[in-house]
């Protein structure tokens, strides 16, 4: 199937901010295909280039080289068709403070050249629990509500592709749940969603696929499930019958750690490896005369995967 967005060898070098400054390469040869209808999460530390990538696709930042095709339309040569399909909720809360909610959302729809549709705007505002605020000036709203206003603006022109740049930054738990539900609902209606986040939990919860960007390079794109399996370190906990003071000499080669007040031996292994070492370990444990009454395995979270990935990358090694 043709990708809904195809990013091809995209690079962006920002001009120096002042005389004598250095140009800065924020994106390095990024290629990425987004599938129609998926939720794609872009992860990366601060300054990795997430916002830059989104800004290029949405037409706010001019790429230095490379191309982006959205639904078959080149974002520069056929910007009308391309942008017509794209909605953007930027990272910063930038709103027209003195406008009313209703006016600012209607303005967005107008900007996309769509005929006025009060019923649709009402539906969007109701969905985002903004209906009773529709006549309020934006500056009287709380930060979380402003975020929702920005989402309403992006949805007002019925985009097929929606970019959410850190939609849940500075948002409370309840609203975050609302946001996730909204994203799922939009996906169910066929909208493709690309979101960036620092909350791994969010990517884990929401995304179909995950891309990790670090220092301007896309270092990994993978199905969430595969990623977690592929890169997942697993931990085996051996619940001991009798507590130990230290890891016995006989088990030193297994690099175990002792946890839970000495009642648990923890073994970390790579679940994808041919030999995980579990058999040897359990034999050695029995041979050492250690009795145990339970075994448990745990898969590392995306967060741990992510941290190790980015750390590897800054060491200059690619996973």
């Amino acid at each position, binding site marked *: 199937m043709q990708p809904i967005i195809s990013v091809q060898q995209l690079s962006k070098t920002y001009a120096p901010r002042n005389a004598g400054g250095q140009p800065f390469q924020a994106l390095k040869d990024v290629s990425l295909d987004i599938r129609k209808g998926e939720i794609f999460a872009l992860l990366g530390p601060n300054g990795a280039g997430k916002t830059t990538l989104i800004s290029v696709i949405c*037409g706010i930042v001019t790429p230095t080289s490379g191309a982006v095709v959205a639904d078959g339309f080149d974002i520069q040569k056929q910007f009308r068709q391309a*942008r017509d399909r794209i909605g*953007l909720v930027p990272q910063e809360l930038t709103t027209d403070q003195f*406008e009313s909610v209703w006016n600012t959302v209607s*303005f967005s729809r107008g*900007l996309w050249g769509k005929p006025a549709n009060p019923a649709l705007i009402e539906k969007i505002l109701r969905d985002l629990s903004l209906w009773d605020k529709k006549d309020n000036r934006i500056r009287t709203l709380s930060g979380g509500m402003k975020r929702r206003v920005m989402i309403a603006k992006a949805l007002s022109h019925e985009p097929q592709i929606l970019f959410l740049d850190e939609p849940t930054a500075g948002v409370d738990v309840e609203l975050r749940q609302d946001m996730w539900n909204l994203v799922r609902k939009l996906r169910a209606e066929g909208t493709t969603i690309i979101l960036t986040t620092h909350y791994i939990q969010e990517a884990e919860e929401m995304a179909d696929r995950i891309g990790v960007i670090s220092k301007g390079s896309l270092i990994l794109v993978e199905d969430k499930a595969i990623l977690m399996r592929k890169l997942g370190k697993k931990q085996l906990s051996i619940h001991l019958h009798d507590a130990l003071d230290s890891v016995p000499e006989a088990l030193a080669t297994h690099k175990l750690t002792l946890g839970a007040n000495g009642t648990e031996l923890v073994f970390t292994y790579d679940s994808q490896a041919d030999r995980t070492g579990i058999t040897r370990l359990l034999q050695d444990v029995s041979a050492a005369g250690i009795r145990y009454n339970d075994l448990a395995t745990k898969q590392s979270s995306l967060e741990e995967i992510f941290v190790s990935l980015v750390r590897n990358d800054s060491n200059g090694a690619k996973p």
Partner: protein
Amino acid sequence: MNVGAIKAIYRFEMARWFRTVLQSIASPVISTSLYFVVFGAAIGSRFTDIDGVGYGSFIVPGLIMLMLLTQSIANASFGIYFPKFTGTIYEVLSAPVSYLEIVIGYVGAAATKSIVLGLIILATAWLFVPVYILHPFVMVLFLLLTAATFSLLGFIIGIWADGFEKLQLVPLLIITPLTFLGGTFYSIGMLPPFWQKVTLFNPVVYLVSGFRWSFYGISDVGFGVSLLMTFVFLGLCLAVIAWIFKTGYRLKT
């Protein structure tokens, strides 16, 4: 052409104006009224007529031009600078809108506002001094051309400015002196010959002169020359705007 977008930007800008319509209108009306009281009635009565027109009446077209210029620049520069400053410009840049449409929306709104103001000032002038318009069509033409040209200039300034100081610098240091030295309050013929020559490099001279001709049929420079210079200036602004949009200057990184 995304006409809907032009309308949206235009309406948005007009709504912003209506929110503060009293200030926007009161201050220019009050200041022009003061000009009439001081120059028209108090001092003006001591002046002899210029080319057969009483001094109070003579300054009316110049004052309207003065307001038209300063208000066009102020409205248009602020109109585009503000979204740049707050960041809301992201939406316009990411919308399926061409640069031309952006300019028409913002500049059209700014020009509308200053034309409305110009007409209000004309009406105010009527209350104080005798005013008549010999060539109403030419008058309207100059009104439109000037409002459009200087709104474009304001738009350019708003894009160029990266701080509120710069936004005020150009109007203060360049436009105000040019308008005051542009024959608003006097006829160029009153100046020593050398300064008459220098004055001809001031574009405002042509606007004021042409505009005054449409009122009273008197002018410092020929009406045709005035019109030509106005178009030249308009073309210049359009060229700069075209360049800005081609390069994304100060709008896109």
